[in-house]
């Protein structure tokens, strides 16, 4: 048996990239993100750049399986309610989950590869993508 969640006021500004805002009970929530973030000093887009071959984006993440419990657990809800006066969130991003209510299983996975590319001291403005 799970408790009831009561929130008087909720305010969120931004929710992006595979994130979940769940109000109410749920059974299973699964969120996945793969981000390949490239920052270049100049605007240059080469199209696909091998996103699928970076191990951080493809390597399986081992999943932990809980061992069988060694103790018999008994949970008593003396109060059936979890109450919160107010919640304010500025941003929810990249497979994050904000959940008001109870759930059975929540899972999320985020994989982010970040590369910054700067021009060398001798190189000036980009030449690629322009008429030569």
């Amino acid at each position: 048996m799970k408790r009831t969640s009561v929130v008087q006021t909720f305010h969120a500004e931004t929710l992006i990239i595979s994130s979940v805002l769940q109000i109410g009970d749920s059974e299973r929530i699964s969120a996945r993100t793969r981000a390949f973030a490239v920052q270049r000093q100049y605007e240059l887009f080469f199209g696909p750049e091998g996103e699928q071959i970076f191990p951080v984006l493809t390597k399986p993440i081992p999943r932990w399986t809980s061992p069988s419990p060694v103790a018999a657990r008994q949970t008593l809800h003396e109060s059936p309610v979890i109450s919160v006066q107010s919640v304010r969130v500025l941003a929810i991003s990249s497979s994050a989950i904000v959940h008001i209510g109870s759930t059975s299983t929540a899972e999320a996975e985020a994989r982010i590869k970040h590369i910054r590319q700067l021009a060398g001291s001798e190189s000036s403005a980009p030449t690629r993508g322009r008429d030569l």
Partner: protein
Amino acid sequence: MNYTVINRHLHVGDIRLVAVASASLFLIGDADAIHLSSAFDTPPESLIIGPFVPLVPTRGEAP
């Protein structure tokens, strides 16, 4: 072995969060199982100074 959990009254005032990000969970409630994983890769070689060429991993090496 037996153990007992007693959830007594739980009342929270104001919660202010700047950000919930990268496979994180903010939960007001109960849950049975939670699986969260996040991989973030910014190795030293991810700062590239030089000519702008398309990005591909180095051969035979984990980029």
